[in-house]
């Protein structure tokens, strides 16, 4: 623990290496996921030709269509083409509609990011406040209530929460629309009206997870000797938690947040369906149903990238915040 000359710069270079290795690792995971998804999807029964022809398909028609769509090629060859395209930034064309995949995905992605962003904007501050408060007044009435609420929300299936929410707020009370018709947004007020329900539903779930994790991290830090020291300095709880404890909890807290947020892109099938919100998850489900492999692949890629981006950033933040006090 001696202050070695240049220990800081050494720390930086170490951190640099750590960051690089994390990024490399993320890339590796990415490849793994893509291959897995492709293997599974190509194992799916039936293909897009069946979807296109539907009930009335005749064997010869199906065969002809397969040829037209190059579905007769072996799987690895199709994957090769797809991967090649992907590397050159071209996700290919949807087998179902013939349109470029990007045309299909981008608007949906935009919607999903909008929803995820709105949810994050609401839930992160909320969770932080609640989590910190719980840690601060641990065992107090506030802590108990919040703990119970979080428990209650995570212990009921999401689709029920969502459906119930719509039925009560949109149908019975008529205070919000039952559909998330983003086309109709022209003002902030409309934006709020439209996003209120889905965001609240998603928030109720994500906040629950975050609060629990943040609370745990904070309590962990609050048991450190330097916190007792702070108490003996006569500091106020607020000062202790915000100025003394939080800086040490940043790593794990950020990690907790990232984990909860990472599910906001792909993990929201239910909400998208119930509120008929045109997002990525829905697209992927449809594309799976239609066996539109290129689209499925692209969606999976997006989800994976989003997840890895979030968690990796969190890790890096953690590393950064730890590097200062690494060998302390």
């Amino acid at each position, binding site marked *: 623990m001696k202050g070695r000359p240049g220990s800081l710069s050494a720390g930086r270079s170490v951190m640099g290496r750590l960051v690089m290795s994390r990024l490399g690792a993320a890339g590796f*995971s990415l490849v793994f996921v893509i291959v897995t*998804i492709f293997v599974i999807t190509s194992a799916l029964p039936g293909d897009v030709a069946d979807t296109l022809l539907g009930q009335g398909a005749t064997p010869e028609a199906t065969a002809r269509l397969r040829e037209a769509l190059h579905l007769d090629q072996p799987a690895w060859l199709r994957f090769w083409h797809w991967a090649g395209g992907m590397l050159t930034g071209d996700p290919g064309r949807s087998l179902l509609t013939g349109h470029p995949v990007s045309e299909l995905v981008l608007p949906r992605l935009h919607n999903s990011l909008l929803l995820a962003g709105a949810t994050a904007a609401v839930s992160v501050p909320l969770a932080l406040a609640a989590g910190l408060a719980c840690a601060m007044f641990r065992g107090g009435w506030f802590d108990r209530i919040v703990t119970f609420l979080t428990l209650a929300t*995570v*212990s009921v*299936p999401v*689709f029920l929460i969502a459906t119930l929410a719509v039925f009560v707020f949109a149908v019975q009370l008529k205070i919000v629309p039952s559909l998330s018709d983003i086309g109709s947004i022209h003002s902030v007020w409309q934006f709020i009206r439209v996003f209120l329900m889905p965001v609240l539903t998603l928030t109720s779930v994500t906040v629950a997870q975050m609060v629990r994790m943040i609370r745990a991290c904070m309590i962990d830090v609050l048991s450190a000797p330097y916190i007792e020291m702070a108490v003996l300095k006569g500091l106020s709880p607020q000062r202790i938690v915000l100025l003394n404890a939080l800086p040490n909890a940043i790593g794990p807290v950020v990690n907790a947040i990232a984990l909860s947020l990472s*599910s906001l892109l792909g993990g929201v099938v239910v909400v998208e369906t119930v509120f008929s919100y045109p997002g990525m998850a829905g697209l992927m*489900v449809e594309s799976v149903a239609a066996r539109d492999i290129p689209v499925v692949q692209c969606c999976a890629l997006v*989800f994976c990238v989003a997840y890895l981006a979030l968690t990796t950033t969190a890790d890096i933040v953690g590393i950064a915040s730890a590097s200062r006090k690494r060998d302390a």
Partner: protein
Amino acid sequence: MRDLFALRRKIPPGTRRILTLLSAWLLLALLGPMLAPHPPGEIISGEVFGPVSAHAWLGTDYLGRDLCSRLLWGIRYTVAICMMSTALSCCAGIFLGIATTVTPVWVERVLGRLMDGLLSIPSLLFALLVVATAGESAPALILTMAIIYMPGSYRTSRALALRIVRMDYITAARARGETRSFIILWEILPNMTDPLLSDIGLRFIYAVLLLSNLSFLGLGVQPPMVDLGSLVRENILGMAYGAPAVVVPTLVIALLTVGINLTLDRGRV
């Protein structure tokens, strides 16, 4: 080994509470269906979403079947599927998690990344894909959920194990020249049982909820059998009439998850 029996003898209260609760549900799952007044497929009344009555103790479902009977079967399937998948995922996760703390670094490098990859696939979509491929059946569901929850359990147990491996008694065992498997099974594992148990409990809850949400994508056990989630899902229209058919199964799910959650919280800290 004598010390193992010693372990059995003194299980901490928190752990014991969890085990009791789980076994209680297991018992209900085993015996419940025997108490069912009707077969799960029988239509006993022309009235759908019927109210509680002497004839149908918990009302009727969307086809006029006896909800009580279906609920009992639902509990069996949900509990069974979730317990099996949890057991599978945790066994695999825990073993790998601990093993990677005593194996060469590169093993963890690779394995950890694969786990990350698995984690990054949205669980609902992953389940959808697998079940669509493997066909809709209890084994398929169990396996899928096992895969989905393995990475989590892997991470937790590895984190726990990492703390323990640094302990001097592990060093001592190594200095003595003990084998890896001995160190994993006898030196490390016994010291993580409590935190692991609460982790397993949590995973069980997640499994219950995931299974329930899977029913939203129409995945579940084959009719006329049913799991709790599907029970809620298939009767969801009854919500408009406040039918017991949708309220009761929801309550049961909540009971299952909240119960275990509370026990864990009390077991913890």
